């Protein structure tokens, strides 16, 4: 065992994460989480989502406070632009998930980060959502993510950190793989 004091600090408590990993390996039922969001129509294409509670570690959990997200569409869609477009929120979710992973993986590999910035682009042919051409899908044609990272590591080490973050990212998985979705009305 190394007794060298770890001076890398990306603000991620890797020891706690590794302890949780060990504990959940022994008790896989506690690893079952359910994430929730609520959404309410405001007016036009404007709606407001809130997240507060979720289930995990065998019991109900709460965020420290309720978070709200306004979503709308921009004026070129004849909307009032009260918030981000939902597809932009998907890009934001992907970026936040990958960046969180980068910080954690870098911490675990003792790589001190100084700055991490990501730029995301999702290309879309809106002939799909407008129903103009049935051969065009509604969603993104593809997503491009570009990272700029300033850190104490070689370019290949940073590429490996970003690759590992993709490998372990929930949103990357959600975006790149199919998921069954059931929508009910009551």
């Amino acid at each position, binding site marked *: 065992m190394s007794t060298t004091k770890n001076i890398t600090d990306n603000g991620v408590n890797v020891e706690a994460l590794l302890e949780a990993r060990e504990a959940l390996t022994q008790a*896989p039922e506690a690893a079952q989480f359910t994430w929730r969001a609520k959404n309410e129509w405001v007016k036009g294409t404007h709606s407001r989502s809130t997240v507060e509670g979720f289930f995990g570690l065998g019991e109900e959990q709460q965020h420290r406070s309720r978070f709200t997200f306004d979503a709308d569409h921009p004026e070129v869609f004849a909307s009032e632009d009260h918030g981000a477009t939902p597809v932009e929120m998907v890009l934001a979710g992907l970026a936040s998930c990958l960046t969180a992973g980068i910080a954690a993986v870098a911490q675990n590999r003792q790589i001190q980060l100084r700055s991490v910035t990501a730029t995301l682009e999702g290309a879309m042919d809106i002939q799909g959502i407008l129903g103009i051409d049935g051969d065009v899908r509604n969603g993104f*044609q*593809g997503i491009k993510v570009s990272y700029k990272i300033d850190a104490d590591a070689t370019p*290949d080490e940073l*590429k*490996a950190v970003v*690759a*590992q973050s*993709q*490998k372990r990212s929930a949103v*990357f*998985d959600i*975006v*790149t*793989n*199919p998921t069954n979705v059931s929508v009910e009305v009551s």
Partner: protein
Amino acid sequence: MRTTTVVIGAGHAGLAMSRCLGDRSIDHVVLERGEVANTWKTERWDSLRLLTPNWQSRLPGYEYLGDDPDGFRTMPETIAFIERYAEVISAPVRTNSAVTSVRRSDDGYVVATSQGDWQCRTVVLATGACNVAKVPTLAAELPPSIATLTPLQYRNPDQIEPGRVLVVGASASGTQIAEEIHRSGRPVTLSLGEHVRVPRVYRGRDIKWWMDAVGVLDEFYTDVDNIDRVRNVPSLQLAGSDERRNVDLNALTDIGVRLVGRLAGIADCKAQFSGSLLNLCQMADLKMNRLLDRIDEWVAQNMGDGEVDPPHRFEPTRVEASPPLGMDLTSSEIKTIIWATGFRPDHSWLDVPVFDRKGRLRHDGGVVESPGMYLMGIPFLRRRKSSLIDGAGDDARDLSAHLAAHLDGRTVVPSARDEMPTLRSVA
């Protein structure tokens, strides 16, 4: 019938253990359901050759003495090699003795076979790591018009209808089978997940020579971060051939194989491929380069200038800008799917509570969680080379030492390495 130790399986691993037990004068038998080297005779495709060079199949008391140390054995040559080993070490093999159950007794185990029961104090499981081909559960969604084969059933392209073939999995089996089928005139689409890219030759030497020399193959199971993960890493993208050709993804792209992402789902007779192909290829390139870096560092410290070719790096894996995310399984000309999605051992005859919640045998470096029971021949059992013929010797030496201590009533930690001087020559 009674003996001290029953070894189950007369492949290279069981025979290496037999030799080490013999060296220690431990009375034993080696039970084999068929003949010596049974799986090599019945569960391998026709053109397969060993992935390790001839010189690298060293077994306790046995090694290659032919005139082609850098060649790769065909299956008949591999079978002959293992049969000869059984003769050289006079292994007490009982052929056509299929084990039907193993259960605990008062002082050890009862091993029931098609030829009667054996009472023993210790038992060694050496029945191999590749008894069952893993097939993903989504295979159940396939339309019945599509034929499927696993690498255990595949023999040669003549088994397969003309038309496009989807090969799922890009380890040693998947890449070699994809290459062979594509060259037979049946165009191949290769769906791949995590994979391990290595060149056959680097700086003028075989990659297995480097991995041996640098010490990669000797890495011990207690020295890796996460042994469960490492034991599940796919096999290296390698083939054994006279021309020492690569079977990495660029080599397959060069002959016209189409690469797609991991098979993520089948819905409405449509295969869905993951959009993560680029990341998986970049990860494999980075990992290969870390191995090459390690080789270069070793050369700098241990070899003189000019002794080997200068260092270089290989072209990154080429991935098309927008690989297909789906494939229609009814209208496209796909006729056959090959599931090269890995293997698992079959210990269904083991009637001893040693399995974890995922059905894997609980063991510490081959010392099973049932006193006097040992496991051989699975990936990274004790060392990175444990799945190679060349790895059976060191594992058999360690585990036979632990077994001998158990018989003597002494306690030894499972990770102890054998210190006993052994006879390495002969034959």
